[in-house]
């Protein structure tokens, strides 16, 4: 409850973690607001069905609020003039102001009478795209801060955000955002490509960092490292060096 989880990937694609959290929270009965900036609704829907959850049904019953970035930007750019009273959540594309996006999140997750969902969850895939669309790093950090205050503290919900990062990245703005978010996260799941290169049986390694140092002074962060292999319907994790191919 009230936790901020950061999903991070380096040299590989960490989106399997997003799919996992999405189906996990929906199955747990939480109300989820999913800000999906990178892929279309049908992509997530198809994968979620493989994982045993129907996004369309969740949307119908009001459990899932889905912001499809790709579709909304088209409506914004090619559609009619927006009503002045209802700024679009993607309004930052012209104004570089993420406030409308935050309002969208807050309104979606504020419980309505008659709601019986356990705990609200905000899921973002992925935050690094906002930089490509013209948002400034400071605005993004402010947005995340507001979301934490609103979702984690006030509503006692969870926030899960995916960012990309690269070693020797030249994208300083991105590195700034990622480093800053790392400092403030309660849990970091870091999916990395293997340092030795591509391997068919081990797709990467995942570092799980529990930020115990945030909770109590003097405590050390707990770091666990596993390797993983992604399959069609699930992901198998194993200790380093113990992949099924080797044993």
């Amino acid at each position, binding site marked *: 409850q009230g936790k901020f989880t950061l999903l991070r990937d380096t*040299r590989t694609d960490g989106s399997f973690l997003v799919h996992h959290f999405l189906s996990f929270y929906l199955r747990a009965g939480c109300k989820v607001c999913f800000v999906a900036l990178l892929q279309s609704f049908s992509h997530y829907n198809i994968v979620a069905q493989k994982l045993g959850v129907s996004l369309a049904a969740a949307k119908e019953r009001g459990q899932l609020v889905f912001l499809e970035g790709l579709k909304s930007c088209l409506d914004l750019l090619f559609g009619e003039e927006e009503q002045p009273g209802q700024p679009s959540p993607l309004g930052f594309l*012209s104004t570089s102001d993420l406030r409308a996006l935050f309002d969208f999140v807050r309104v979606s997750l504020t419980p309505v009478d008659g709601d019986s969902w356990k705990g609200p969850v905000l899921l973002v895939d992925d935050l690094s795209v906002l930089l*490509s669309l013209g948002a400034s790093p400071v605005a993004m950090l402010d947005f995340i801060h507001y979301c934490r205050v609103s979702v984690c503290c006030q509503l006692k919900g969870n926030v899960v955000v995916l960012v990309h990062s690269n070693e020797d990245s030249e994208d300083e703005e991105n590195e700034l955002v990622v480093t800053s978010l790392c400092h403030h996260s309660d849990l970091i799941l870091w999916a990395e490509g293997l340092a030795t*290169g*591509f*391997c068919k049986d081990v797709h990467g390694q995942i570092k799980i960092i529990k930020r115990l140092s945030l909770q109590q002074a003097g405590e050390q962060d707990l770091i666990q490292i596993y390797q993983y292999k*992604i399959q069609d319907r699930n992901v198998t994790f194993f200790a380093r060096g113990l992949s099924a191919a080797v044993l």
Partner: protein
Amino acid sequence: LVFTEEDKYGLYSNLLFKYFLAEGIVCGHDLFVASAKEHPDNIRKELPAPLLDDAYGKELGDEAAAAKSEDFQDSMKIAWRYQNLPKMEASPTTHTKFGHYYDVSKKMSPELCQSVKWHSFYLHEELSLEPGMKTWNMNSGYARLLQSIQRIISQEGFDGSDPQKKQRNVLRIGIQSLGSILWGDDICCSDTPEDIHSLTKFLYVLRGLLRKSLSACIITVPAHLIQNKAIMERVTNLSDVVVGLESFIGSERETNPLYKDYHGLVHVHQIPRLNSLICDVSDTKDLAFRLKRKLFTIERLHLPPDLSDTVSRASKQDLAGSAKLLSSGCGAMAIGKKHLDF
């Protein structure tokens, strides 16, 4: 969204671009071609002619026959563990038939070219932006291109908006040399460009348009000219497939005996992971291309064994350099920067 990083002189990426368009014509897809460099009509005249099945089969057949004559092999004595591995297939065999093959030395016949609907966008002939059109501070060239693409998609019903239309077709979009100075964007000439978000915003909206309609798009970009690498990282994130072509022309690799059979390398930086947790990764990451008189082929790069008696320092460094190349992998799975030291 197929994103291609151009090779230095644009020769080979242009070829790849034309292949994409030619395949569209042969499959009966509609085409949309945008360029700021060459008039699209000129591009259309230069498309390669499709090879008839038997002609290609014969070419490949000749090569395969030559290889088969050495087929019987003595059992290996030292490297016997390798005996059981399948024989290295350099090019796709004739049983994997996906797409069509083209003869680079011949041009496509005008009748075949006319058989599909052709939409073109030549930046310098387009009318200026309508006032009041939202651009989101994007470069006006890009904004006009987006508007044009969106108009074609909705008018021709590629987004399923016209329920009357029974036969649904695919739209193939080809955009040449995006990001170059000819489009009015200065990311290729300056370290601190005026607007680093134009290209990425354009790609995001394009991605939205492609997802919403039955279309596929190839873009070539002179990536070697873009000084600001952060842009390339963001662009990779926004594309489904990223392929880089590195030609050996003018580089020291041209005379390197290791590469003498090839004209360049193909770097696959990213492959799509759509509608699934997994992506379709091939066994090998090392691909090279060569342009024969009639065919442009992409094959697995295999280095010949180093059989010289005296392995001098210089060639050892070359090998190390190539080994580094071989160990670099694909972004969707894993990229290793350190090559394995033996």
